[in-house]
């Protein structure tokens, strides 16, 4: 395996365009992504380590981490289940309105987050279309962390659907046909034969959705209620610091979110890469 992948990578240099694509990529990443981020660290440089620590561990900020992480986790789990179901239905079945359903999946990306926020708050408030149905049953959505999770789930659902869908499409029919012809039930064949192929995409999509939820502001703020210690999200804490002209404080909290997210994304990329290598025997 090792030697194979080495040979592959050697022969890959046959392809042209290394210099050009490297040049464009590095230039772009440096100018557009890294250079501005240095501004963030420039702000941090003005803080001592103790100051930094006391900003990012202040009680209310810590409470906001808990709210944000908790709600994002719930949203990610909902999205994992819902996203898998949707991807499955969109790939495997033919039915009237399928194209419409497919198009609908991209809506959360296309809608400005503020619009999503206003609309969701309108729908789930106690006098909204949904709120009126749910409230008598004892579910309060708007102004609780359930509302936060809902808004997060809404803005990040396409990540799961759009990562799982292509993998499911590429899955050869023989795989599950073979299992079925050997007498496996739907459940067993799905769990044993199909899921192993879907896991990486599902985890990647769910991970991306989770990361997206950590930074979301516009869609959440209208439905959150923003009560100290209960429904304040971390993005709001950053926003508050900005209002106080406290760039260093804002940058400090933003850096916590940034590092958490980047670490998660790196983990996803490494894991995904390892998986693809396993699948294609070093052909990545």
């Amino acid at each position, binding site marked *: 395996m090792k030697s194979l992948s080495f040979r592959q990578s050697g022969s890959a240099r046959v392809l042209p*365009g290394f210099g050009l694509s490297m040049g464009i990529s590095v230039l772009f990443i440096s100018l*557009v992504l890294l250079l501005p981020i240095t501004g963030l660290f420039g702000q941090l440089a003005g803080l001592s380590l103790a100051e930094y620590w006391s900003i990012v561990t202040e009680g209310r900020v810590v409470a906001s981490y808990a709210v944000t992480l908790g709600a994002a986790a719930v949203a990610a789990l909902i999205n994992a289940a819902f996203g898998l179901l949707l991807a499955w239905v969109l790939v495997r079945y033919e039915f009237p309105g399928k194209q419409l359903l497919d198009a609908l999946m991209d809506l959360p990306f296309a809608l400005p987050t503020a619009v999503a926020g206003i609309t969701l708050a309108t729908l789930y408030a106690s006098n909204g279309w949904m709120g009126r149905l749910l409230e008598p049953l004892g579910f309060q959505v708007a102004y609780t962390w359930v509302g936060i999770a809902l808004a997060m789930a809404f803005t990040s659902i396409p990540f799961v659907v759009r990562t799982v869908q292509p993998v499911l499409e590429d899955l050869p029919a023989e795989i599950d046909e073979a299992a079925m012809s050997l007498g496996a039930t739907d459940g067993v064949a799905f769990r044993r034969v199909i899921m192993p192929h879907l896991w990486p995409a599902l985890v990647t999509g769910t991970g991306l959705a989770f990361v997206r939820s950590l930074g979301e502001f516009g869609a959440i703020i209208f439905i959150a209620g923003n009560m100290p210690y209960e429904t304040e999200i971390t993005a709001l804490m950053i926003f508050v610091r900005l209002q106080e002209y406290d760039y260093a404080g804002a940058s400090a909290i933003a850096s916590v979110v940034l590092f958490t997210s980047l670490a998660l994304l790196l983990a996803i990329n490494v894991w995904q890469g390892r998986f693809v290598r396993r699948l294609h025997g070093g052909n990545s």
Partner: protein
Amino acid sequence: MRRVGDAPAVRGLLILAAVLLSALFLLLPLVAIFAQALSSGVMVFWENVSNVYTLHAIGLTLLIALMTIPVCLVFGVALAWLVTRFRFPGRRILQTLIDIPFAVSPVVAGLVYLLLYGRNGWIGNFLDGYDIQLMFAWPGILMVTIFVTCPFVARELIPLMQAQGTREEEAAVTLGASGWTVFRRVTLPNIKWALLYGVILTNARAVGEFGAVSVVSGAIRGQTNTLPLHLEQLYQDYNAVGAFSSAALLALIALLTLATKAALQRRATRREAIL
């Protein structure tokens, strides 16, 4: 032959669940937007849409999107080519770096641009000496829009190009094709749908971006006001119908791009079927 989930009962149940949940979760908000926009009648909707400030906001928003797409396209293809066709140290890091925009809250993204290119930032300060203003003018809006949208094309292409491998391209090169020909004749046909989908996502996000743009725009009506900013202002001014009219426009732009994609896709599959 029978495949998993082919039993009519399972099939029906799953489709029903998917459709119902989507309707509740995704379609209902969309309907609510149009319901609110048209709640005072078509005429009021039209008046709001044809307002001179709204028209300017639409124009600026589309213009920014039009300028963003080619930049993201070139970058996305170059990066995807680089990380999927060559192995070199730092490849994985590079791939993670392009996710920075996903990891940075849009408001913070706007802020870092402001701190660098604003009058107190070191680049901004330098440019100010030549009376060049980037922030609070359209170049600033374009810059942050490129920042938040640049991962989409690359993210769509990388997994696909990774899965497809390099054999076809290597064969073409061995047969003496030039780099550009290989890309146009071999790679492009393979990635065109992913490319298109990346462009559509880029466009959708570029048109709808609010957080980052709100920091660097200054929101001067008739000058630097994009449609999402305009919408928020109308909402602030107790003009819910006006706000949702703009929201409906944005939703329409989104639906239009999605419909275009579906139509192109269908035509292409039909042509392939004929051949």
